[in-house]
């Protein structure tokens, strides 16, 4: 890996963490209405999966994956405006948090019907295949979403047609308050991959190297026509399901265990062992990301709320007006 790449990866990790922290703080300041879903602690997954994607690959992120937006190239200013529900957000204020995607960067908006974006990702991958385009679709979902029928229907189809799609399951052990043992009867949901005719792989979601390695194999499979991969990344969210969830269903001990596996700190250990001047890197990165997030927030705060009548816009591409 080149130095540039290693620094870049560190930058993404730090940017996401900074953004996540800021969003959480804004929420506590009452500046964000509606649900806020923190992905803090899961940065390595989105960075590892998205950093090697091409501009015209499509991602279908989870409500928790604002990091995916950033790594895929979305403008942090517009992302912040989106989160604040302003007119300069991707949804122009029409839907919340990450439900508005950024089509110019091939990012699809999340929905609350978890897993419902998987059939969409599969349809997109089907188009790539029949048009013989060298593009892949990355469908993110939580391990809780894996229980939904849409996930089964999508994977089944993708397996039949060996579609260029990677199914990335962010298993953070809790779907809201529901632990894995109440969500499914297996240890690794990736075991279902072979049930659909494709490879299932488990990786350590807090270890950026592990995620990158598994992702590369999955992307190679997709691009070469071998078909999908069920890529399960074991990770952990530091905050509750939403910012309003105190997550008392988890133990302090468990949280601490995972905090000790923090993906950013691990990458810092790696950089140190690679003989980078870690203090300098940390400092300059900190300043860089802070500035980006400050600018994003300033932009978002200056952006107006949409006006009432805008609620009637963007329903149709070819509207039929009453005369």
């Amino acid at each position, binding site marked *: 890996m080149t130095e540039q790449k290693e620094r870049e990866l560190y930058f993404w990790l730090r940017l996401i963490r900074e953004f996540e922290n800021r969003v959480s703080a804004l929420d506590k300041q009452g500046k964000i209405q509606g649900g806020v879903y923190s992905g803090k602690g899961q940065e390595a997954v989105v960075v590892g999966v998205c950093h090697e994607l091409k501009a015209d690959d499509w991602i279908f992120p989870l409500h928790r994956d604002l990091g995916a937006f950033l790594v895929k190239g979305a403008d942090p200013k517009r992302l912040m405006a989106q989160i604040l529900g302003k007119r300069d*957000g*991707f*949804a*122009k*204020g*029409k*839907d919340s948090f990450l*439900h*508005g*995607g*950024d*089509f*110019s960067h091939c990012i*699809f*908006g999340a*929905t*609350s*019907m978890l897993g*419902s*974006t*998987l*059939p*969409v*990702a*599969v*349809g*997109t*991958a*089907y*188009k*790539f295949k*029949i048009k013989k385009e060298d593009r892949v*679709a990355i469908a993110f979902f939580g391990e809780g979403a894996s229980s939904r*029928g*849409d996930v089964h*229907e*999508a994977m*089944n*189809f993708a397996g*039949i047609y060996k579609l260029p799609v990677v199914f990335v399951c962010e298993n953070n052990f809790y779907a809201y308050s529901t632990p894995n043992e109440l969500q499914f009867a297996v240890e690794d949901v990736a075991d279902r991959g072979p049930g659909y005719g494709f490879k299932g792989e488990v990786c350590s979601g807090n270890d950026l190297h592990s995620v990158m390695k598994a992702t590369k194999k999955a992307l190679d499979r997709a691009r070469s026509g071998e078909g999908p991969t069920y890529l399960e990344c074991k990770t952990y969210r530091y905050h509750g399901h939403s910012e309003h969830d105190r997550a008392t269903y988890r133990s302090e001990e468990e949280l601490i265990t995972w905090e000790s596996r923090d993906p950013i700190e691990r990458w810092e250990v790696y950089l140190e062992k690679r003989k980078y001047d870690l203090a300098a890197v940390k400092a300059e990165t900190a300043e860089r990301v802070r500035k980006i997030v400050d600018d994003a927030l300033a932009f978002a705060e200056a952006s107006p709320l949409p006006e009432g009548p805008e609620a009637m*816009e*963007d*329903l*149709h*591409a*070819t509207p*039929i007006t*009453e*005369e």
Partner: protein
Amino acid sequence: MQVTYIQAINQAMHEEMARDENVLLLGEDVGVLGGAFKATEGLHAKFGSERVVDTPIAESLIVGAGVGLAIQGMRPILEMQFIDFISCGFDQIVNMAATLRYRHGGQASCPIVVRGPCGAGVHGGIYHSQNPEAWFFHVPGLKVVAPATAYDAKGLLKSAIRDDDPVIYLEHKFLYRRIKEDIPDTEYLVPLGKAALRKEGRDLSVITYGSPVHAVMKAAKDMAGEIDIEVIDLRTILPLDWKTIRASVAKTGKVLIVHEARRTGGIGGEVAARIAEELFESLDGPIVRVASKDTHNAFATSLEDYILPNQEKITEAIRKLAAY
């Protein structure tokens, strides 16, 4: 040329798929078999497996993948083998397709057509007889069409495929092979959002769509000497053609709404409410509806006869309203 209603639908798909290589078809048994009713006959042989996809039994996937194709510039036709099964894809329609453009602030559109055989009168029982338009009538972002003639079936399907928004296309299975019509040999389209004034009249307006259009037209003909009936075939249910409805109500002052879907919560209620609201001073009598009884589409013939609107029920309702 003379075609049946289902042949007209088949022709529309053939023509649009030949015209635009981005049009493709997904559904159960649509390819090799040509469809459970043969609506998609010949398409697989002509356009191949990549464009005519025999999917697994997975309505949610069919619609969701349709959305995924649509955002990539394709124009998928998504068949529900019986429109009753649209309930299995309901979430993808109302929460994915219908919201796509809106929640992305207008960045993209969703040009899908979800089509399938609807309607009763064929002893289909509960799951082969439904008329689900009311569910989708309530969802912004969608368009809903229901042709009653072979001419409209072809023209509306072509328009729906070319339309950039998600269209629910309800083809009435009772009409599939029962109607034969002469349609033009040259290409034509029927625009969405425009009702058809099937017959002009002065005494009473009947607003209807789908299979009952034919019973209404027969009633109008049979009663020609007695009552001068105006017949509006809505053709597009969402959005409604209020210009045509308004003109007719202002003229006759009496409105009968006929639809095969159930009465309570059927779209007739919305039509009646809005007429009462906006055209109150044009009304010379109560707004009346003839619709299926508020029960499930039972199987036995005797039950079906009881439930569904028919010639007699329509005629009686017309007479009674005309006499008011």
